[in-house]
């Protein structure tokens, strides 16, 4: 994984598979360059045993093979910066994934194309879940909510190429002043 946005894309797919109706993706950077990533869903959640397994590279819900690297790779990249990850989950309660990274560490991955990640997730799942992107830095903050887009489109699917192009530009435009050249 070359940047944080790719990790987010990968991890948010877990929320989709958990049957979430709303997936909230948060990227917040503070003045001390501490970066908090959150992926919170209202999906099926995990019991303690599964929670322990997903932290291990040898735990996966797949039946075709024995490795699952998404969470372990993210954990490694967070720890390299002096940060860590945390997962709170319970059956029926949804899951909140949090990663804390230190942006001033030389090992901190760049943020990457967050708008590309959001649009990939949205167009991969045109019938839901809905996604709420919330970003903030000392430079400002933004939110992007697919529930608003869905309502405005009134029946036109979110994976129409023209809609995807619009969302990509809309999100990029709003992210630019918040993260543009600031995080790494």
């Amino acid at each position, binding site marked *: 994984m070359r940047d944080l946005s790719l990790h987010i*894309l990968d991890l948010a797919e877990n929320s989709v598979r958990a049957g979430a109706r709303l997936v909230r993706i948060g990227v917040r950077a503070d003045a001390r360059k501490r970066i908090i990533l959150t992926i919170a869903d209202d999906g099926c959640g995990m019991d303690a045993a599964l929670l322990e397994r997903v932290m291990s590279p040898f735990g996966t819900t797949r039946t075709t093979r024995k490795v699952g690297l998404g969470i372990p*790779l993210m954990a490694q990249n967070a720890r390299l910066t002096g940060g860590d990850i945390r997962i709170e989950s319970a059956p029926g309660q949804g899951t909140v994934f949090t990663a804390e990274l230190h942006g001033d560490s030389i090992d901190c991955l760049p943020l990457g194309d967050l708008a*590309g990640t959001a649009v990939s997730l949205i167009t991969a799942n045109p019938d839901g879940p809905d996604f709420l992107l919330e970003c903030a830095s000392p430079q400002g903050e933004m939110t992007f909510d697919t529930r608003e887009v869905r309502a405005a489109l009134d*029946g036109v699917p979110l*994976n129409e*190429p023209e809609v995807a192009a619009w969302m990509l530009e809309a999100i990029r435009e709003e992210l630019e002043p918040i993260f543009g050249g600031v995080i790494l």
Partner: protein
Amino acid sequence: MKSMAELEAIRQRTLQRINLRKEDDSENIRVVVGMATCGIAAGARPVMLGFMDEINKRGLSQVTVSQTGCIGMCRLEPMVDVYMPGKEKVTYVHMTPEKVGRVVAEHIVNGRPVTEYTIGAAEDK
């Protein structure tokens, strides 16, 4: 600044296209991009967005882009399957955003798969 009002215009324009597609689904083409951990790490996201962009620019109303998980050939990612009506599935491997233009122009528009990018060509090496 992008506004929600623009979405209304997009809605009007695309509704016609969607209805066309519903009326005649025998012509529908599907592009499926592998987007599991392996695909994403290998660069599937820019490939997927590249297809979206190219299809949008060319106004290809009969093409849909979707995503799938890992099919177990992680070393060949990013992989893309193209389904054309009445033809066998074509699987492209080691895709890049640069290759997308040729696949759209030659295969999706003109119906001739780009053989050198396919899984068959990769396996023969």
